[in-house]
């Protein structure tokens, strides 16, 4: 079933939209959730919640790329669930490792400025990603959006694993410098 046909099912309030979404995008969304949560049961629940969230926003929403749209919902739900779990216990998954790496991107504070609003930060990050070369941008997103391991990124793009690490390190430095230049306080 094509993406547009699944979109039509949502718009026509046809419950087959859920099953068709699960068939077409279940594996994709599950991999995103599992990268963050490292728990099959939690990942399944996030994926099921994704279809419900999608059902609630379509219509009026009609995304251009359904897979990306559903994947983003899964990612947000998974991060929320991870935060709840983290309060109880800290794990050793890819999420924790990736967060430790992203600590390098935290800009230094230069006073008593107020923390930047979430939507402003999103806008800045988006702007920053557009400034990167295609390769650096892809590698960075595969790591910090999809939480893929170095070896997976290396295989995906035919890069040496050290090249992936170097690219990520350089981009994290650039992001920190960019956020500092923009006067961002987290």
């Amino acid at each position, binding site marked *: 079933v094509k993406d547009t046909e699944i979109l039509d099912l949502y718009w026509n309030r046809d419950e087959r939209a859920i099953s068709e979404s699960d068939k077409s995008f279940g594996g994709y969304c599950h991999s995103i959730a599992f990268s963050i949560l490292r728990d099959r049961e939690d990942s399944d629940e996030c994926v099921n919640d994704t279809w419900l969230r999608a059902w609630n926003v379509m219509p009026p929403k009609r995304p251009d790329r359904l897979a990306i749209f559903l994947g983003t919902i899964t990612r947000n739900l998974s991060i929320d669930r991870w935060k709840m779990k983290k309060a109880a216990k800290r794990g050793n998954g890819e999420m924790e490792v990736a967060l430790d790496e992203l600590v390098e991107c935290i800009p230094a504070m230069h006073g008593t400025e107020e923390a930047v609003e979430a939507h402003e930060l999103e806008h800045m990050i*988006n702007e920053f990603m557009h400034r990167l070369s295609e390769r650096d941008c892809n590698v960075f997103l595969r790591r910090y959006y999809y939480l893929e391991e170095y070896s997976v990124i290396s295989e995906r793009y035919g890069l040496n694993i050290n090249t992936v690490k170097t690219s990520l390190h350089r981009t994290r430095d650039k992001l920190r410098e960019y956020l500092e230049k923009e006067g961002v306080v987290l």
Partner: protein
Amino acid sequence: VNTKTYNEKNYNTDINKNNDSDTDKALRIMEAFSAVDEELLYRTEQKNKHGKITYINSRLTKATRYLAACAVLAVIGIGSFAVFNLNTSKSSDSSGSTDNIAQIAAAVTENAETASDAGVQSPQPMMQESENGESAATKVDAATTGDAVTTEAAATTEDAAASLQDSRVEVSLDAAKSTERTGAHIPDELPEGYTLISCRSIPEGSSYNDIYLKWSNASDTITVEISDYYMVYDDLDLIYGSSVSIGNISIEDVESRCTYNNGKTDFTIDRKFDDGVYATVTINADITPEEILAILKSM
């Protein structure tokens, strides 16, 4: 003892608080990625006709790149050695004599033979000059005196000049730019901060043109070699199997040839222009693919 234990506990608690605080901030950054444009996310999933995006060439191609670099270095080394011998001979006898030229010709002959034995395919003119180098040298007027290598080459007979033609000599950038065929391909656009530290060319009268340029910015270097007669490149271009001319190169071509080490970009390309002139561009610098593309486009 109790006080020490108490302080250690407080210290560890502070550490944990800081770690949690940093993690929360990192989490804010990670959450902000959720708003990245769909196009960028979609691009990460795209695949080429081989099933995936590949940002570097295959190992075979990479190996040929190293081979090309070695071959070019060998050729440059031979030329440099000949120039060195020329300068050494010149300084030891300022009056000038046939012995000087004979030594240079002998050195060029010896180098060419060595390169040939080692399997390096030398440029054709070098082999020709080595065959008649000795006779050319004997025709040099004993009265030649020179302030510079180029002056001496011009003052000697035509055959003697031919024996020197493989040796690059320092020239001004303007002189290099006025060189027939190759001069037109010297890049006009370089990132800010780069200074030209070497500009060498084959003396006039050679059967081919060749220019070597090197710019530096602290430890960053950009090297460009332009030639209209390098047989070795013909072979390597076939090995590469690419017909992309340097004038039509795309940002994807550039990015696929970039590797990153210690905060610097390594980039090498050997390609020919539409008019048949060849160029080797070697970069080791903190430079973006876009800046590299701008250099190539300005050639």
